[in-house]
């Protein structure tokens, strides 16, 4: 069998295994969905009026439009915590040692995890998106192409964060540690432009908020769906996604190829 078909076949097997896990034990994924959904409800129905006044909008529906792109990306950050936890759990299992002594494609274990997580994250994003639609979110004249591009940004961002989360999971001795080290993935959106615009933040903090990975992605998504100015944020978002994907991939591979303890 050629290397490529071996890679595809073994990765598919590993993906099936991970999806089976997710189907049998969906509680982790569902728990992680709670945070973005709660924040969506909280900021729209409780703080909504104040927030929309703060961004200079008219009523609550303006703030929904502002909020949703950030919440969608936050959903991705939140689901990838589950990735870090399940990778860390998996690596402590004896079965991984078995995989390492089998004549299978070396990368398939991680590739299976990544594709499985990306699929789960996309399903989560769609679910949160549907809730947002039900709450009154509407795009501003976005074309089919712009919707497609928005979807592409979400998918690429998911891939990037997932590889980082896999690296964090591999580097953690247990599930608790993995969950802790993946915390930034859910905290970063809180200090991005997800809830309030950057220029409403203290001056010294603005550069941090502006150039961290979430803000450019959020601004790009806003631009595509709501017609706001994207500017350099599109390139920044792509650069972040590419850099995080390569970094996470290399980091995970290096850890996987290291001799196990």
């Amino acid at each position, binding site marked *: *069998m050629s290397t490529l078909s071996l890679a595809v*076949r*073994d990765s598919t*097997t590993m993906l*099936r*295994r991970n999806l*089976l*896990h997710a189907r*049998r*034990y969906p509680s982790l994924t569902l728990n992680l969905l709670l945070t973005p959904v709660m924040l969506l409800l909280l900021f729209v129905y409780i703080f909504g009026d104040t927030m929309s006044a703060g961004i200079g909008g008219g009523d609550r529906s303006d703030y929904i439009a502002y909020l949703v792109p950030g919440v969608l990306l936050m959903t991705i950050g939140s689901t990838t915590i589950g990735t870090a936890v399940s990778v860390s759990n998996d690596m402590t*299992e*004896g*079965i991984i*040692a*078995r*995989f*390492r*002594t*089998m*004549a*299978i494609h070396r990368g398939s274990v991680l590739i299976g995890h990544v594709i499985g997580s990306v699929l789960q994250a996309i399903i989560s994003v769609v679910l949160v998106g549907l809730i947002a639609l039900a709450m009154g979110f509407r795009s501003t004249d976005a074309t089919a192409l712009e919707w497609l591009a928005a979807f592409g940004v979400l998918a690429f961002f998911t891939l990037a964060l997932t590889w980082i989360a896999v690296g964090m999971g591999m580097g953690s001795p247990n599930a608790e540690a993995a969950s802790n080290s993946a915390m930034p993935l859910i905290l970063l959106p809180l200090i991005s432009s997800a809830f309030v615009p950057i220029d409403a933040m203290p001056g010294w903090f603005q550069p941090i908020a502006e150039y961290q990975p979430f803000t450019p992605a959020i601004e790009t998504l806003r631009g595509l769906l709501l017609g706001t100015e994207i500017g350099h944020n599109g390139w920044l978002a792509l650069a972040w996604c590419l850099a995080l994907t390569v970094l996470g991939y290399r980091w995970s591979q290096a850890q996987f190829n290291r*001799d*196990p303890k």
Partner: protein
Amino acid sequence: MTNPAITAQALRKSYGDKVVLDGIDLTIPEGTVFALLGPNGAGKTTVVKILSTLITADGGEARVGGHDLAAQAQSVRAAIGVTGQFSAVDGLITGEENMLLMADLNHLSKAEGQRVAAELLERFDLVEAAKKPASTYSGGMKRRLDIAMTLVGGPRIIFLDEPTTGLDPRSRHNMWRIIRELVTGGTTVFLTTQYLEEADELADRIAVLNGGRIVAEGSADELKRLVPGGHVRLRFTDPAAHRTAATALPDAARDDEALTLQIPNDGTQRELRAVLDHLDTAGIEADELTVHTPDLDDVFFALTGPDTSVPAQTEQPKETVR
């Protein structure tokens, strides 16, 4: 001799300052059972991990199934099956799903995979539990599933790292039966154990590992002859005959109560003939003569104590009488 299944020269491994393996040499013929015996922490698991491509050695070389461990790791992996010390089953999915996962990873066709999985589940008495998550299995069941998974690809060489540790006596005997069946089929088995009885029961050859070195190697019988403790025991029914014999054999340990004499002897044919000749010359006729070789426990303690040197052959007889 056929091509050896496993050979190793001067394998070394250290973790930081701690030398775990300090030059291991092995030759294991195809279709035999090789047991690596040693106390906890001797490095048994490290040897298995290196030979099964899980970790790399710091030095030395090895061939497994005719393939070089360092250069052709993937070919080695295709030839071996490994059951490690800690259960290597996926607890989140059922026993049957575990088996089918292995079938997929061994690239069997769907029909073939299902046939092999069903056959092995049957053989390892797991049919009833097949639809339950593996995490709910007992220790013995997990072990059986573990070995069944190892066999899915039909490996020619199998590594079993302490396969019966923590099993009850019945499960242990079942495991022994399974291992014997494997060897009958031509499979080479490399097993580690801390149970001397197990090595004695199963292995064609045994190596004793201590402090990162192989301190003795041979068949169970050869190993037993390495250490003191072997003797010929003469039993008499007539106290007078016992007394006469004791006078004629001043070297023998005398037990007046049991009417026995113990003469140091390593159990070889030549030594035994010498004793018999001596008895004939002295006109002693015992009612019963038995040859005792030390058991593997004696070997184990002698070879793996704090002072690990093998006792020199010449020193043996005098101090052996018990």
